[in-house]
């Protein structure tokens, strides 16, 4: 109940009705992927656990980071996780699987250790590409202030969040043509 009240307070303080002029405060977001002319919608967590086995491959919807590691391509999908692709033959790249990492905003990899943001933590994951397995090696807690609304620029139009759908772990462009909510 306390948590619900907390969320409600946050929500009330963050949303306001559309109609204000967007250009009063020219402060841009730190995150350059948002466009004030578009509407964004919440991405709800399917799971916030990092699995020990890669999930099955899926479509790339909103690629946020590209990384080349050995003969692999790793494509981060903001908020959701990393697509892993065998690019031994660039003329015929093959998706291997998907590594779900909730609230990811970027990562680096060295010697098969992935360093990534997971919710508000920084995690170290050892990946085995051949066996498609993942092992959590280290977790540094609370390295990131985790408020998913923080990354949104003021004035951005968003599809009204529905907390009953699960934890919000990121944002994506929406096909909605109108909305009552904005940051």
């Amino acid at each position, binding site marked *: 109940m306390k948590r619900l009240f907390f969320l409600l307070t946050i929500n009330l303080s963050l949303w306001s009705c559309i109609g204000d002029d967007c250009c009063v405060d020219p402060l841009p977001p730190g995150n*350059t992927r948002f466009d004030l002319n578009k509407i964004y919608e919440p991405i709800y967590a399917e799971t916030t656990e990092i699995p020990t086995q890669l999930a099955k491959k899926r479509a790339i919807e909103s690629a946020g980071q590209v*990384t080349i590691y050995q003969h692999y391509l790793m494509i981060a999908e903001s908020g959701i996780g990393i697509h892993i692709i065998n690019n031994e033959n660039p003329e015929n790249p093959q998706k291997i699987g998907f590594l779900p990492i909730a609230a990811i905003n970027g990562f680096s990899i060295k010697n098969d250790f992935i360093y990534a943001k997971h919710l508000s933590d920084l995690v170290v994951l050892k990946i085995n590409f051949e066996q498609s397995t993942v092992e959590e090696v280290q977790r540094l807690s609370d390295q990131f202030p985790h408020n998913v609304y923080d990354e949104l620029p003021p*004035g951005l139009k968003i599809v009204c969040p529905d907390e009953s759908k699960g934890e919000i772990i990121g944002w994506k462009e929406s096909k909605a043509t109108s909305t009552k909510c904005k940051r």
Partner: protein
Amino acid sequence: MKKTLNLLLILCLGVWIAACNENSDMGPNSSTGINGSMAQFAISSDYLFMLNPPMGKLSSYTIHQDNGTLEFNKSKNISREMETLFPTEDYLFIGTSTGVLIYDISAGNHLNKISEFDHIRSCDPVVVQFPYAYSTLRAGNACWNEVNQLDIINLEDIQRPTLVKTIPLENPHGLGIDNDLLFICEGNWGLKVFDISDPIDPVLLQSFQDIHAFDLIPHNQTLVIIGNDGIVQYSYRDQQNIKLISQIQ
């Protein structure tokens, strides 16, 4: 003669940097991923750097070689909207919405600011091929300055970076360099490829307008692009005939 020597020097530097990028740490069986120019995480030798968007924290961690674990070194509050990181062996270039910041990371657990190159408010990743930095400025939305351009910045005196040239663009996002070629993502306007054999006078070689390009990495004669079309790859083995080789969604 002097010009030839200069060119040769720049070419050597280019090759050296390209080699560094492939494997910035020289240990046996050690390899580091290469991130695109829009990334907010970077590794240089045994150090991990990351940005805490939207406002102002740059953090540094030491990576333990034996087990891959991290040890926190330092955080710096930086009162700018930081967007992207580009590491070289000794320097970390931070693209912010108001300019490029240059940090000395030669002693990786320290973060010492050396200099900055300020510009008007915009979105700007930066990549470096010494002695020049290439930074794109994009008009992010209606509230910002309507500027879309490439800035070429001279780093010969790293304490005092200076603007050498500005080239107008459509809607630049990520960018990348491989020796004589500069690749720039133009969002909905696709991809532009410039010949930078004269590093301060880019000449447009080819443009591809039928893809959406957000960020890219040129590596081993293959250009990997991400955007709304998923992953699109081009071969630039033949610089005069850069061609599409694959696309997956």
